[in-house]
């Protein structure tokens, strides 16, 4: 498996936070590949390191956190070695990002048009007039009404769903290779969520943009993703394509997650299943499997030895001692 063929290749990424108790590793040994046009979903509960992984790729970690290991290859270059100026040329241009909060992601004192044109002019080096035309075209594409008027309006005139459409238009206006969407619909009304997701999917398919989708909503995953990465306590516990994930999940955590989805056809008197316990707080000191304390099938080995992320089937990687060929003692690590 070479890094060069993939658009984005993350290799054994480790990100840590400086705290009073010393260095706390929040993302530990995360690897994944993103091919052009593919949608990869990062799933996991709060605090599992999804957002930190995305911010590490963009190199937008705040003060007190830094990448301590691994490499992030984008189009054949390790972006972790780029200086700030070169990184700025990638951000917003080749890799763009959509945030969770559409209500506050637009500057309230600048018009929509100004904010749309700014990045187009900066990255694509277009004139003001060309940028305005491109911006109008882009706003039309995201399905906004009375586009020309909206260009001269301030964000306060738009609803949450409309603002998120503007954010998507901005993110895609420079035709990026990768779009990182960090829970793009969490703050929106349920009725608008599906529309926004659909829109993102359509536009990205059209321009061949790959999506790195961060979410904890398995419904969104089923609808959007090609491949899924399940994260638990800073590590990848399972990676596979979306159909296999829903039909043949292997890791006990993934199985637990799938069981805990509320279904509309479920029996009224049936209570919703949940995974007992919580994510361990200081998980970096755990020697064995990090899911050990909540796992229904844990053994003595699980307590003391960390399972590898091993290949269990073609394109299916799982981090569990109790699964298929890993249990039999023959395995190959997924990312060398």
């Amino acid at each position, binding site marked *: 498996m070479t890094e060069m063929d993939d658009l984005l290749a993350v290799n054994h990424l480790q990100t840590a936070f400086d705290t009073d108790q010393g260095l706390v590793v929040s993302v530990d040994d995360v690897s994944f590949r993103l091919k052009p046009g593919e949608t990869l979903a990062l799933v996991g509960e709060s605090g599992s390191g999804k957002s930190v992984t995305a911010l590490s790729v963009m190199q937008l970690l705040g003060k007190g956190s830094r990448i301590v290991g691994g490499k992030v290859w984008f189009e054949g270059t390790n972006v972790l070695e780029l200086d700030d100026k070169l990184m700025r040329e990638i951000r917003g241009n080749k890799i763009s990002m959509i945030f969770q909060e559409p209500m506050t992601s637009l500057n309230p004192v600048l018009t929509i048009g100004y904010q749309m044109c700014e990045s187009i002019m900066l990255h694509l080096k277009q004139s003001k007039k060309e940028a305005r035309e491109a911006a109008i075209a882009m706003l039309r594409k995201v399905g906004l009404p009375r586009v020309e008027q909206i260009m001269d309006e301030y964000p306060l005139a738009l609803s949450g769903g409309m603002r998120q459409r503007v954010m998507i238009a901005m993110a895609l206006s420079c035709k990026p290779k990768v779009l990182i969407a960090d829970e793009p619909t969490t703050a929106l009304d349920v009725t608008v969520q599906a529309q926004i997701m659909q829109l993102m999917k359509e536009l990205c398919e059209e321009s061949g943009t790959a999506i790195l989708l961060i979410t904890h909503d398995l419904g969104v995953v089923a609808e959007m993703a090609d491949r899924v990465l399940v994260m638990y306590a800073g590590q990848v516990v399972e990676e596979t394509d979306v159909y296999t994930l829903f039909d043949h999940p292997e890791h006990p955590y993934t199985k637990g997650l799938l069981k805990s989805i509320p*279904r509309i056809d479920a029996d009224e008197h049936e209570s919703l299943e949940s995974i007992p316990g919580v994510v361990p707080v200081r998980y970096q000191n755990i020697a064995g499997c990090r899911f050990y304390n909540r796992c229904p099938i844990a053994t003595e080995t699980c307590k003391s030895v960390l399972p590898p992320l091993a290949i269990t089937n073609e394109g299916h990687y799982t981090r569990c001692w109790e699964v298929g060929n890993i249990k039999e003692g023959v395995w190959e690590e997924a990312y060398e």
Partner: protein
Amino acid sequence: MNLFERYFTGRKEPQLDTDMIWPEGDESSIKLFTRRFKKHKLAVAGLGVIIILTLCAIFAPLIAPYDPTTVTESFGAAPSMDHLMGTDQVGRDQLSRLIYSARVSLSVGVGSILIAVAIGTILGLISGYFGGWIDSLIMRITDMFMAFPYIMLILVVASIVGPGLMNMIIILGVLGWPGIARLVRGNVLTLKEAEYVKASVVLGYSTPRILFHHILPNTVAPILIYATSGIAGAILDEAALSFLGLGVQPPTPSWGNMLASAQSLTVLTSQPWLWIPPGVMIILSVLSINFVGDALRDALDPKNTK
């Protein structure tokens, strides 16, 4: 059947809301501002006074009946038809001097605050955005400037660089920035956590661009309000310094040095036309500007929904 339908049955995918008709936007922001500003009757009157003063200053040569520095034949004359406000001890027309003084006071007020706003805003932006040791350094310098007895410092500097209008503006400007720097820094501290500032980092904008194009417009309102009251303060400072003889030098008239004549007891008791008008002008202009400042604060406050 796709996965979504298999796992989350019973939901139909809704249509896009492209055809939705949106009502025309609310009251425009300028209209809203005017409406709120007009609620302050005193501020509207104050604005009127400021406009009249500004016009007087600009068209002084056309309005003033005499040249403010020309000595006439009557010394210390009481108001008459020839000299509506009388003449001073050396025989210059008091009304003309009063009109010309508006030039000095307004240029000192506006000029010094422009310098102070420029320095204060830039330092505040840098300090707030970068934080860390840069912030500490700038804030300690600000503390130092604030800890100095203000009038003393101005007096010392004025006596070193010498009195005069330009020096006056520069001194007041260079000493006036700490308050603005603190104000802007405080604003930037909250603004830099805003999602839209993070979004502009993600869009690959350079730091100066983020500072001046995305953060600065959000701090304009508080700066404007602060600057307004700053103008009033600078006018008072100029008057005080000129009164003490370290400000604008005669024969150039200023309200401050006109008041200085009241230092003599005879003038104070027997020639009130020499010191009451400049005193009234100072009070009137400072009050007007402060009223306008108050109204601006209410009108520009985004939390105000009235």
